[in-house]
């Protein structure tokens, strides 16, 4: 189906089912139960899952296939956000032109940065991309204030000269982003028993765009072009002496992944029309590297898992505080309870980065292939148990 083989089609269908039913899947606990804080099925967070999924899937086209580790991809995300907000300010509150512009501008920007950075490889390439991204961040923060509104960030105002549409609504507020009239913030709530499921228009737009992006990534992975990108990672010398020009291949991969980042930035601005320089900071660039490696670089589904994993932990772990811990461990004797809370305290709330860091180290050391490798090992274990009678060894499947 869709020009994919059976395995890839089923992978795509699984991802489609997971994203489309996410409002249910991520909301397993009834609203008034103690575990409700582990629910992630609210629009804001789900949007972040899929948007960062797009970002990571695109990053993986560069890093996973060619092995070029960019430390500056957040710059493209930021550029995408700024472009989208400008489109809202000047043209219309419809998200489609905004998203298209953010992809184009990010692509052009990536062409420029990639052209220079790809003169070097390895650590020097990474440093160059990092330098470019920091430059962009500083430009956005100070020098380009007329375009970026500096520290405050670019926002919509009541006197934006919007060509198609109004500057302010009848009741004097700023208009909201929409898809041909369908407001991005509109949410349908469905209460079933103790559960409260939320279906947001914005989330479904992001989810559908994520599925299309994922599909394109699968096609690229399986194409002759994708094979060449994997060859770049393997042996550029052999490539050159096989008549292949490596530069345009790496540049194309760089631009494509930059466009994915721009798309993610454009979607972010479409969900919440503001853009700030901090989106371009090196920590944001580092985050997508973490997502990709944590999920499994070079695999199809890995970056999506990594993005979901990190965003989930960021939001859930950071919400747990000492009060919550005391509730959980109230069954312990008082002294021990305090002690346990004291031990766990650094890992939660603001300290969730510590937890993430430890998890990341564990994954890199014990599962170099990321969460995907973990999944494969588990499924192999099951297969082995099943087939151990006839002695068939579990066949290693290429990483998906």
């Amino acid at each position, binding site marked *: 189906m869709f020009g994919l083989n059976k395995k890839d089609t089923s992978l795509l269908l699984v991802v489609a089912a997971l994203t489309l039913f996410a409002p249910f899947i991520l909301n397993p606990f009834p609203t008034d139960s103690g575990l409700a804080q582990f629910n992630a099925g609210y629009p804001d967070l789900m949007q972040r899952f899929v948007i960062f999924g797009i970002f990571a899937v695109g990053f993986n086209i560069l890093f996973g296939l060619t092995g070029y580790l960019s430390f500056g991809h957040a710059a493209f995300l930021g550029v995408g956000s700024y472009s989208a907000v400008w489109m809202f300010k000047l043209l219309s509150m419809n998200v489609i032109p905004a998203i298209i512009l953010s992809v184009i501008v990010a692509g052009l920007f990536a062409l420029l940065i990639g052209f220079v950075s790809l003169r070097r490889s390895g650590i020097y390439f990474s440093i160059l991309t990092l330098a470019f991204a920091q430059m962009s961040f500083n430009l956005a923060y100070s020098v380009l204030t007329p375009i970026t509104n500096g520290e405050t960030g670019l926002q919509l105002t009541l006197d934006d000269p919007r060509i198609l549409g109004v500057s302010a609504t009848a009741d004097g507020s700023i208009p909201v982003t929409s898809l041909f009239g369908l407001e991005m913030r509109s949410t349908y709530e469905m209460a079933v028993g103790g559960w409260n499921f939320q279906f947001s228009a914005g989330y479904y737009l992001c989810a559908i765009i994520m599925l299309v992006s994922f599909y394109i990534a699968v096609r*690229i992975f*399986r194409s002759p072009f994708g094979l060449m990108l994997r060859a770049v990672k393997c042996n550029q010398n052999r490539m050159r*002496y096989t008549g292949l020009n490596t530069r345009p291949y790496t540049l194309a991969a760089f631009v494509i992944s930059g466009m994915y980042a721009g798309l993610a930035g454009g979607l972010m601005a479409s969900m919440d029309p503001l853009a700030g320089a901090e989106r371009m900071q090196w920590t944001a660039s580092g985050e997508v590297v973490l997502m990709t490696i944590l999920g499994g670089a070079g695999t199809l589904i890995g970056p999506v898992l990594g993005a979901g994993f990190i965003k989930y932990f960021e939001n859930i772990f950071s919400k747990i505080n000492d009060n919550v811990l005391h509730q959980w461990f109230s069954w312990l004797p008082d002294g021990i309870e305090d002690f346990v809370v004291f031990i766990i305290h650094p890992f939660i709330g603001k300290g969730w980065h510590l937890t993430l860091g430890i998890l990341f180290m564990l994954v890199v050391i014990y599962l170099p292939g990321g969460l995907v490798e973990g999944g494969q090992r588990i499924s192999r274990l099951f297969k082995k148990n099943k087939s151990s009678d006839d002695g068939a060894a579990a066949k290693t499947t290429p990483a998906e």
Partner: protein
Amino acid sequence: MGILEVKGVGKRFGGLQALGDVNLSVQENTVHAIIGPNGAGKSTLLNCLVGKLIPDTGSVMFDGQSVLGRSPHEINQMGISRVFQTPEIFADLTVLENVMIPCFARRDGSFRMHAFGSVVNESDMLQKAETMLDDVNMLSKAHLHAGSLSRGDKRRLEMAMCLVQEPRLLLLDEPTAGMARADTNNTIDLLKEIKTKRDITMCIIEHDMHVVFSLADRITVLAQGTPLVEDTPQNIKGHPKVREAYLGEAQV
């Protein structure tokens, strides 16, 4: 006129004159060997032919066109393929993919944004690659990772990758260096097979006299960056200059 004409090529590395004044003419459909002691400049000469180095003086013409100033991938697209001293393959890819890459390079040129095709649906390319693997007796290993092959098989694979491009000139830099006797014999057999099965022009750098004399139609002896003699294997064997250049190595 040979298919490859090297005229007056010289190359200096700082104070070292690695190549003096090299003239070489390789005729179509022959195997031309270049021999010489260590540091004679054989690899340097070969690197000048494939675009890795640019000679300071002289000209290198391939099929009437100059190769100087062109990059390696352009020279390959002109029809020159090379085998490295240590096999250069795509270790993380499968054997079949390794052979398909040169197929694509031949068909699509040095760059093509072929992002919506599917490798498994390229039946022409697949068939070409499989036929080639069959030719070098590696079809059964098509789905192994190239990195897991034995050294002899890696060499075989690298040759297959070059041959599948149907190059007009195949350059080999010490294809048997550091190989065990059995692997060396294997490689010689493979090269002989290639020579008889296909119309191919080869230029081979080799230390192993056994390899040279069992393959070459003509031999150039290089010493200290200049060709001493060029002749047929029979005449080279007894040549006093060659004995001199090789000292103890001349008992062949």
